[in-house]
């Protein structure tokens, strides 16, 4: 095999893509359609709660186009980080959508699902054996912290996906996976250099974001050869330039010259970006350096409470001037009124938009210069009921608080909604961002092979 041709329809499964671009990609006869279905960017809630941040109908729309086109032309499909976070409920959610499409479109194929969610007991045992290490700037973890995790996933490397492909899978649905693996597994299986395959995957996982103008909802085509790869956006109004592709390598990374992943790192110190033709960039020189120990990244989230919030604004210049004092007074009033509660029972926050609502303590500008400000009163408490109670009390206290020099005695806050208080439910935090040393890159990722036909599936 001299070259491997890959189509990346969209940056995240469910973000959509134009049919025209997709068809232009199909005309180029891809060997693989790869799609990254997840990210930790939308925050810890989705991992913790076991739900996807993407919309079901939107995911189904994208998947239907991908699966029907791929089966017609015998193109392999690899989906990574299924369901947004790649845990077991996320994987099931995605698989269920695939089976719906199989039924509606009368498709049949061999599918591999690869789990990435980890048993707490197993991770604890590995922790006791000293196999976990913190990935800076996260701090070392503890047994208590691991036990507190609602869900733990490990980011798989290429190895489990290669095994699934070797076992004859035509469609691979992987749980949490290192993003580039979606694109790099098939080429590495076919003997292409890992450095180029993974670097190409790193760029292609964001589809046309690396083009100019960039878009996460449009398709990118990649051709991998022995000593280079080519990238071409599939919408004619976009082009890849050496700057757009090189700049993309910076994105969401600390050091763009060393991209660490399962089992090693992509070394970009000798990478060259070359304008191959007007819309196509050629990349060469990227290398993969295997690490001595094979490590996998673990991600975990824990439940920290339940949230209720109230959104309001003020347009009163006297109130705005007194705002810091008013907030302090409301906090004290809450504390006095619920004196039986301990400090750790609830967090009461006032987010002031127009002051530092966006940047918090990183905000260098002092004071408020706006003529109006937005205030979010937010409570995270150990129960939803308590969050409701504290939020309600803080809101009514702030609404009627008699601050010095007040002239507007009817109420201090403008509420855009009735009810004014909104229950936001469970609140999670990331609590695991650690490396786990393993003997076998596949030991944490069981593969389930099935033949799916409309309305049925057979284990194989």
């Amino acid at each position, binding site marked *: 095999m001299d070259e491997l041709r890959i189509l990346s329809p969209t940056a995240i499964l469910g973000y959509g893509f134009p049919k025209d671009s997709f068809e232009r990609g199909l005309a180029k006869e891809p060997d693989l359609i790869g799609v990254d279905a997840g990210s930790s960017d939308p925050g810890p809630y989705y991992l913790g709660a076991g739900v996807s941040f993407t919309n079901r109908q939107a995911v189904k729309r994208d998947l239907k186009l991908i699966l029907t086109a791929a089966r017609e032309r015998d193109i392999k499909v690899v989906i990574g980080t299924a369901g947004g976070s790649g845990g077991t409920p996320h994987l099931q959610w995605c698989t269920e959508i695939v089976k719906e499409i199989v039924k509606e479109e009368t498709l049949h194929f061999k599918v591999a699902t690869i789990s990435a969610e980890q048993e707490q007991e197993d991770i604890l045992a590995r922790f006791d054996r000293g196999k976990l290490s913190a990935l800076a700037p996260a701090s070392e973890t503890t047994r208590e912290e691991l036990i507190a995790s609602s869900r733990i996933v490990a980011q798989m490397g290429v190895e489990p996906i290669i095994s699934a492909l070797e076992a004859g899978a035509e469609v691979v649905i992987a749980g949490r996976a290192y993003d580039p693996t979606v694109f790099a597994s098939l080429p590495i299986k076919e003997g292409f250099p890992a450095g180029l395959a993974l670097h190409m995957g790193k760029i292609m996982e964001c589809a046309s974001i690396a083009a100019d103008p960039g878009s996460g909802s449009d398709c990118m085509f990649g051709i991998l050869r022995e000593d280079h790869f080519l990238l071409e956006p599939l919408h004619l109004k976009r082009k890849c330039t050496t700057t757009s592709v090189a700049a993309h390598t910076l994105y969401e990374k600390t*050091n763009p010259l060393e991209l660490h992943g399962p089992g090693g790192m992509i070394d970009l110190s000798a990478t060259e970006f070359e304008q191959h033709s007007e819309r196509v960039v050629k990349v060469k020189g990227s290398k993969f350096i295997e690490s001595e120990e094979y490590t996998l990244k673990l991600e975990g989230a824990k439940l920290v*409470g339940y949230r209720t919030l109230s959104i309001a604004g003020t347009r009163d210049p006297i109130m705005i001037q007194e705002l810091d004092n008013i907030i302090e007074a409301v906090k004290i009033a809450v504390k006095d009124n619920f004196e039986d509660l301990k400090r750790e029972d609830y967090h009461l926050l006032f*987010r002031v938009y127009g002051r530092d609502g966006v940047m918090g303590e990183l905000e260098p500008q002092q004071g408020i210069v706006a003529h109006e400000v937005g205030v979010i009163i937010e409570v995270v408490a150990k129960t939803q009921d308590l969050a409701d109670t504290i939020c309600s009390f803080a809101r009514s206290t702030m609404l009627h608080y008699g601050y010095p020099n007040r002239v507007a005695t009817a109420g201090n806050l403008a509420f855009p909604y009735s009810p004014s208080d909104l229950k936001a439910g469970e609140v999670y935090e990331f609590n695991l961002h650690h490396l786990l040393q393993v003997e076998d890159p596949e030991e944490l990722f069981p593969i389930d092979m099935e033949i799916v036909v409309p309305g049925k599936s057979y284990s194989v």
Partner: protein
Amino acid sequence: MGFTYRKRGIMLTEKVNIRELADVIRSKNAGPYELSFDIVFKSFEIYEQVKRSGVFTEELIADLYNVSVDEVISIINYDAAKAIKATIIRPRSAGAVGDGDVYGAQQHAPLLGIEIEI
């Protein structure tokens, strides 16, 4: 605001706002515990000039974001993209109680005031 121009081989320097020198000035999470800033310059010439100016230091970033120098993880010049990248430790992990920007995509504004003598 200002500009640099050449006249009879003499380079006159002035302070120029970074917005005139860069196409991209952005922030984004680099994982849930780090916040990374990218500045992609308009040309390789400008990028080299900015690099030579030595303006981008850990102290500058620490100062702009009210953090200690220890919390600045790195400043990296990335020649291939004519870009400078700075990364700091997030005050709290993405989406933790009290975080105001889960994606970290709106933390770039203090960079827009940087003036560079070139």
